[in-house]
């Protein structure tokens, strides 16, 4: 680089590099700042200066090369390399510019991704599930009934499926061409069993049934009978209170059996309904038997509390081992004595050393031995029907 021409080129290149760095820093700062600091004009001006300086430098180099051309026969060993280099530079430069031009405009706006993609995701589709309030906007009666029901916390669309198409079809029906899209739950057991089929993996506190067992318990011959035959899906009255306190029978009573007309939104929940029935209306002999035993102080609903398959058909206490009785009768080390006979499960006290019971399986229901403390068995079907009035 002893050639003064070359030195001039070198200075031009350094100047170009400094200008380029300035352009980049200014552009970056402007992109990061809320308001442009340098502004478009300054940046363009500086960029133009960069290009100019580059051109000056390159021109100087080319001029120097042309002066050396005469010597190319001796020192021309690099000429083909130079030609290749220029070709590669042209291709590479074109590729760099092409790449920059192909970057989507919003790329990097919020991070290393296409910024517009966020909005694309927002408008990817219209919400299809409408929510209960939209449903109740048209289906007022069902909405009010449902609001009083044990299922009130559950969305209409959990059973009916997404209502988007249904709502759209109703809204467009005015034109007389759009086909109405219904959202009807099939009248089979299946939709109810999605939630209520008895499965070991379901939490035991969740009401669940084996449909065949359930129907046989009520002597229903057709084992495919839809649940909706007896249970109105919008007012099944699965009561949150124990049956006896609530005074409404879960299957037999339905609101509109007595209450004609539309549902009154201000009416109390079924839980607070005045007495309609007592258990003894139907189970008179069982009630009489129960009154003579040690548990007589308890209301029926204390044990037969929530609506469960096992309650109506096979008895809750039988299907859940000893746990149910232990809710009251377990001896917890730190609990205050409650005045009830308790045992420290699973250690069963040997009250009669002369006649010890055989080893008991852990899951054996207490009532297999202790039923005499409660009420007689086999008196449950006294009057499965009637007694509603």
């Amino acid at each position, binding site marked *: 680089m002893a050639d003064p021409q070359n030195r001039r080129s070198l200075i031009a290149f350094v100047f170009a590099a400094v200008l380029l760095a300035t352009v980049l820093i200014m552009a970056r700062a402007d*992109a990061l700042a809320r308001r442009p600091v340098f502004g478009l004009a300054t940046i363009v001006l500086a960029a133009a200066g960069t290009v100019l300086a580059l051109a000056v430098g390159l021109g100087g180099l080319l001029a120097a090369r042309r002066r050396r051309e005469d010597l190319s026969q001796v020192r021309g060993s690099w000429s083909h390399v130079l030609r290749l280099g220029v070709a590669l530079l042209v291709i590479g430069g074109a590729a760099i510019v092409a790449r920059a031009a192909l970057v989507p405009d919003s790329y990097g706006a919020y991070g*290393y991704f296409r910024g*517009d*993609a966020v909005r694309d*995701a*927002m408008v990817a589709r219209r*919400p299809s*599930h409408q929510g209960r309030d939209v449903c109740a906007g048209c289906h007022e009666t069902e909405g009010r009934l449902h609001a009083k029901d044990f299922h009130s916390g559950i*969305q209409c669309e959990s059973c009916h499926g997404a209502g988007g198409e249904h709502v759209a079809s109703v809204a467009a029906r005015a034109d007389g061409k759009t086909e109405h899209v219904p959202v009807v739950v099939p009248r089979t057991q299946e939709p109810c069993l999605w939630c209520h089929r008895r499965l070991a*993996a379901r939490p035991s506190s969740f009401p669940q049934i084996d449909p065949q067992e359930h129907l046989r318990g009520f002597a229903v011959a057709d084992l495919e009978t839809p649940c909706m035959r007896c249970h109105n899906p919008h007012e099944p009255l699965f009561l949150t209170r124990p049956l006896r306190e609530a005074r409404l029978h879960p299957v037999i009573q339905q609101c509109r059996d007595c209450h004609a007309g539309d549902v009154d939104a201000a009416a109390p929940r079924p839980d607070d309904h005045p007495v309609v029935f007592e258990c003894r209306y139907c189970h008179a002999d069982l009630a009489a038997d129960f009154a003579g035993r040690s548990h007589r102080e308890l209301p029926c609903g204390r044990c037969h509390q929530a609506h469960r398959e096992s309650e109506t058909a096979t008895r809750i206490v039988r299907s859940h081992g000893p746990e149910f009785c232990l809710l009251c009768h377990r001896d917890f080390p730190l609990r205050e004595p409650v005045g009830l006979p308790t045992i420290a499960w699973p250690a069963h006290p040997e009250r009669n050393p002369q006649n010890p019971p055989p080893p008991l399986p852990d899951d054996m229901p207490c009532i297999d031995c202790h039923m005499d403390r409660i009420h007689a068995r086999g008196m449950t079907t006294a009057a499965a029907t009637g007694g509603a009035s």
Partner: protein
Amino acid sequence: MSRPPDDPSDRRRFLRIVVQSAGGFFFAGCLADAEDGGPPAPPGGTAYDWNKFYWAYAVDTDRCIGCGSCMRACRTENLVPEGFYRTWVERYEIDADDKAHVDIALGRSASFDRDALPPAAGRRKAFFVPKLCNHCKNSVCSQVCPVGASYQTKDGVVLVDEQHCVGCAYCVQACPYATRFINPHKHVADKCTFCYHRITVGLPPACVLVCPTKARMYGNLKDRKDELQAILHRRRYMLLKPELGTNPKCYYLGLDLEVV
């Protein structure tokens, strides 16, 4: 985007190309059309400021009844192609030898119709666990996406840019939770979007909406009064595969050791 009509966008675009040609990848975001770095606005004129949200999800495994409502809802809400799942419910049954048997009710009805183990197996424990994208804070999928088509929004949702994805499936391999798949019709990566089209207009994700037992919950970690935060402060929770350092934002209450 609220671009003023007289914005010299062509000039900006030209300048962007010049700057990016010179500066390469470092300036990828340079002069992009983001107005003051603000958030994109959702459709319909709804005000949604993504700086005010950081979405998280919680699953209470004790409450899940395995009804499959979430799977059915997700499929219709998001038009998930048949045979692929953005969310699903696993059933675990532990037999007398403490061996776990896991299965899923696949298909359209997504309904379990019988127990997995026969009574003779001496079942010790059984429960359901819903699964979905964990929207990890340190998401592997968006780390490994070679083109930046898989990304995390400022409000904490991991999304796929369907118009930019090349369909290489590297993210499918990298996701430790197998929540991603290649959409057989669009040929791009597909996954749970946290129902981004719903949460940005104030609606809950479809799976949360239809869950009958509130086993699925979602909430905003930037809102101190948010119900989900209250639950996470009160309850003990676990994450899926925490040893991988993905920092999921899907919190599992009552998670069993067997669940991976």
